């Protein structure tokens, strides 16, 4: 393993997907075995990566570089820093859990696993790309599997829209109905997702092309661009070029995050997707947005980031409050979790906007924490749907008698999502709030209100699903008893709780990635007369920044949490 860890993580799912092509759907166990095996290799390698990452050294590690196109200046340049590492681990965990969550897929199981593996591998590819071209390459590559997964195995069919509840009312979700032109079928959701993400991805790509042209370096390599690209003070269209590039990149990638006015594809997509896809979608796919903004905008345009990041601070409030309120009024389990995800992604934007060591570290840790929490919730919503064939909260209830294990896990999932002490989400949330307090006190108050809202809608959903009287037609519903069904939930719970007690390694790793970034962004450089020498000096200062770590959780042992 060693230096090639990234290649194992990236290519294990691809190889698994290719191997699956040659297997017949009739050999169900072999199909599942190959999928689970390749996901397991990916998970093991990402665990190794996480613990072998040297946070004292920091920077990009496990770097691999293969020339790919001389003419265009593209190379397959892979490497992870402290920000990418935990997200790769989260992808590995969610892929492995997702394979088990979808263990009972009957219809075209082989194809399902192929697309799921490709989706996960493409997502992982973004987290380790050090080349703008490959970042976009993997980003685009993750969109099409989503279309097929939603369309072929999605649950929200047209038939579902025609069903009525006992009072004769259509069971379609009012919110989804209003914002989606009366159509929230899975075909609609899939198409909307692809078109939305592609439209904003090409905006981001325009930004990437502008960076490529105006840097004049004939390369897409982020490491070269961040040191040598001089994009500042080029007047264009009444403003400066760097601002245009930054806005293209920010809004292009914020659509997948999803930031408030660009979010509407996301809950519909969650609602239509099968459970494992929702998990990957909410757990890691949405983080591609934050991650790409950090990787591209923060790295290459630090001064512009300092200038324009308040945009995110304004929009994140709307994300938090709007998502929270819609989730409160939604009646469909997956809409609730979907809107809660888009609300929670507002916290990450808040943490990023404050441009503070603690808050950005908190934001990255929150991405990891949220991946686990929302993964659990979607897995359980999927289980409830499989058992009852409905996601309409008012018509469900009292399921805790039928499925005590699931309802117990659901409580933990809700706790994690709210950020109750005992889960890693708590640490991350506190860090975001503490870190952004100085700069954005008003937004922090909104964020706290958002936590209260989270509490309200998650408890409302929990009560609606598991407590109160039960409709007798659901008396056949089963609990998750077998090891295969319990394993994914237990993994995610263990990780979520384990990192609360042993957060130090995660914190150190993330911090080693955040420190040089924030040092570069917050350092005020006289922009006009900037030379390479000054920049080198700016980088030299990182060491002092690394030294003045204010460690809030120094009681935990350095060994880190092993799930």
């Amino acid at each position, binding site marked *: 393993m060693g230096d090639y860890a990234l290649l194992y993580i990236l290519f294990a799912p691809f190889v698994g997907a290719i191997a699956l092509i040659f297997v017949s759907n009739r050999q169900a166990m072999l199909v599942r075995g190959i999928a689970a095996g390749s996901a397991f290799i990916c998970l093991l390698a990402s665990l190794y990566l996480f613990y072998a990452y040297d946070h004292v050294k920091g920077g990009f590690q496990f770097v691999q570089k293969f020339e790919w196109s001389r003419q265009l*200046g593209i190379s397959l340049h892979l490497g992870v820093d402290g920000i990418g590492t935990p997200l790769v681990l989260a992808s590995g965990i969610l892929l492995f859990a997702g394979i088990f969550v979808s263990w009972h897929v009957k219809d075209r199981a082989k194809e399902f696993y192929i697309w799921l593996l490709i989706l996960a591998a493409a997502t992982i590819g973004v987290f380790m790309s050090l080349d703008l071209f490959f970042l976009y390459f993997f980003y685009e590559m993750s969109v099409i599997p989503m279309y*097929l997964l939603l369309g072929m195995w999605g649950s929200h069919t047209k038939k579902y829209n025609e069903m009525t509840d006992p009072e004769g009312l259509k069971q379609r979700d009012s919110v989804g109905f209003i914002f989606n032109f009366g159509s929230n079928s899975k075909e609609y959701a899939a*198409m909307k997702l692809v078109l939305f993400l592609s439209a904003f991805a090409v905006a981001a790509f325009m930004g990437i*092309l502008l960076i490529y042209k105006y840097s004049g370096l004939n390369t897409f390599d982020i490491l*070269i661009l961040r040191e*040598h690209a001089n994009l500042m003070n*080029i007047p264009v269209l009444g403003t400066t070029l760097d601002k245009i590039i930054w806005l293209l990149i920010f809004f292009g990638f914020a659509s997948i995050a999803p930031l408030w006015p660009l979010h509407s594809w996301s809950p519909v997509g969650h609602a239509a997707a099968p459970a494992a896809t929702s998990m990957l979608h909410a757990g890691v796919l949405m983080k591609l947005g934050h991650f790409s903004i950090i990787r591209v905008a923060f790295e290459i345009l630090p001064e512009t980031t300092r200038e324009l990041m308040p945009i995110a601070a304004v929009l994140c409030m709307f994300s938090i409050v709007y998502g929270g309120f819609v989730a409160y009024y939604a009646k469909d389990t997956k809409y609730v979790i979907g809107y809660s995800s888009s609300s929670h992604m507002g916290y990450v934007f808040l943490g990023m906007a404050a441009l503070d060591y603690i808050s950005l570290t908190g934001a990255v840790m929150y991405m990891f924490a949220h991946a686990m929490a929302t993964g659990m919730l979607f897995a359980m919503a999927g289980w409830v749907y499989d058992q009852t064939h409905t996601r309409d909260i008012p018509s469900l209830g009292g399921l805790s008698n039928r499925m005590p294990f699931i309802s117990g896990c659901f409580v933990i999932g809700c706790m994690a999502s709210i950020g109750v002490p005992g889960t890693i989400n708590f640490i991350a949330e506190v860090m975001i709030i503490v870190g952004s307090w100085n700069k954005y006190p008003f937004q922090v108050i909104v964020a706290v209100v958002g936590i209260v809202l989270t509490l309200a809608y998650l408890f409302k959903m929990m009560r609606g699903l598991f407590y109160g009287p039960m409709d007798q037609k659901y008396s056949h519903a089963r609990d998750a008893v077998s090891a295969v069904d319990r394993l994914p939930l237990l993994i995610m719970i263990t990780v979520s709780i384990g990192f609360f007690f042993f957060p130090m390694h995660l914190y150190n790793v993330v911090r080693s990635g955040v420190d040089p970034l924030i040092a570069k962004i917050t350092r005020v450089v006289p922009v006009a007369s900037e030379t390479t020498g000054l920049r080198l000096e700016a980088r030299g200062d990182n060491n002092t920044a690394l030294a003045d770590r204010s460690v809030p959780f120094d009681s935990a042992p350095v060994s880190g949490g092993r799930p």
Partner: protein
Amino acid sequence: MNFSLTMSPSDLLLLLPEILLTVWLCGILIVDFSFPRLPNEQLAYLSIAGLAATLGCLVWFDVTGITGTLFANMFVLDRMALYFKMFIVGSTILVILASVDYIHRFRFFRGEYYFLIVMSALGMMFMASANDLLSVFVTLEFSTFGFYVLVAYLREDMASNEAGIKFFILGVFAAGLLAYGISLVYGETGKLVFSDMKSAQATPGLAIGFLLIFGALGFKIGAVPFHSWIPDTYHGSPTPVTAYLSIAPKGAAFAILLRMFFVALATFKPIWVLLLVAASIMSMTYGNIVAIAQKNMKRLLAYSGIAQIGNVLIGLAAGTKMGNDAILFYLLTYLFANLGAFAIIIAVSEAIGSEEIDDYSGLGRRSPFLAFSMLVFLLSLAGVPPLAGFIGKIYIFVAAMKEGLYVLITVGLVNIVISMYYYLIVVKKMYISEPHDPSPITVSGPIKAVLYVCLAGTLVIGIYPQPFADWVVSATMMFSGLADPAVSLPIPPAATPIGG
């Protein structure tokens, strides 16, 4: 002008591929007449053998670097001509393979079908070498001649006849434009060979002349506003002919366009860039928007083809060597994706007798292989990684970006999203909709071979494009004078900001 036909045997070597194919062509006709009971497959494989020999000859030329000019510069054999000849011969082989089964629909003249296909290929090979306005005219008409017959080959089918008439009338009209344009240009400059026109003065007559020539070539490649024949002709023609028409003539016409713009008109670049930008924007937008409304697969691909040509024109509008590389690269990716998609249309219409998109419902269940191949080809046309079309599009956009064509790139990127919609509609039918008739569809051997070649091409170019990029770069070496000063890595950028 004085033509001197003093040819040495070594000059004849430059014509070897064409001579070989001409002899073989006559051979096909003789075999067809002499053995009327010979099964058609044998004739198809005979044609393929000849084309394969020609292809081998071309590869040998390319590897050993045999180049030169003939007939007072009328016929030029350079790396680019070789590239386009391989492109044409390769697509012809795939088309003939794809038509082995389809041919049973013709009640008469089955043998002549192969003859006409190979004859058009021969004409287009000459087109790739045309370096003079006269040879442009002659070779263009020579290659179109075969197509006039081929398009109307289904004699009892009204649509095919209509397609033939439309293609013929508009084709002859385009030929008229071409002849008029050539006469104007000759009148203004007194020259016919492209490389002699470098020092021509800009006069209205010359401008109109070249506009007319561009119109005629625009007809060949199907760029807006010269596209009106495309939908009906594609729809009505026999499907293998449509596939052929959608690839090979476009490649050959681009060979001429490249020579015309970069050799004859190099000094007028600022003017023709505007023309190409306009044609490109119109082609992409019109093609993609109208494609959304299509109900028939062949019409969908016809309009998507118009949009794809708009994409290729972005590379031409860049007006640099890199833009030309990108064109050659893009056409290669387009060849595999488009021919593959048409091969599937042939296979499906053999099985269910329909080309309507609605009848593709549930193809994912009826034939997973066909559906998966169609998915790959359509996504490659849409430009989704890791498929060839994505790299082709990126190559073109990067080339245009270096020249600062921001508006054009923005339109191109928006069009990618629009095109995604209608390609995904087909994907939705194939994978999400339930089949009307669940019986499985079998695929015949030759079609399978075409699909494997196209799949391999689409995936290999998409995953590892370097050798293909190297190939196209060496093919356009003749344009290296256009190349912008090479920027090496990793030097810090120059102090002056580029452009504005």
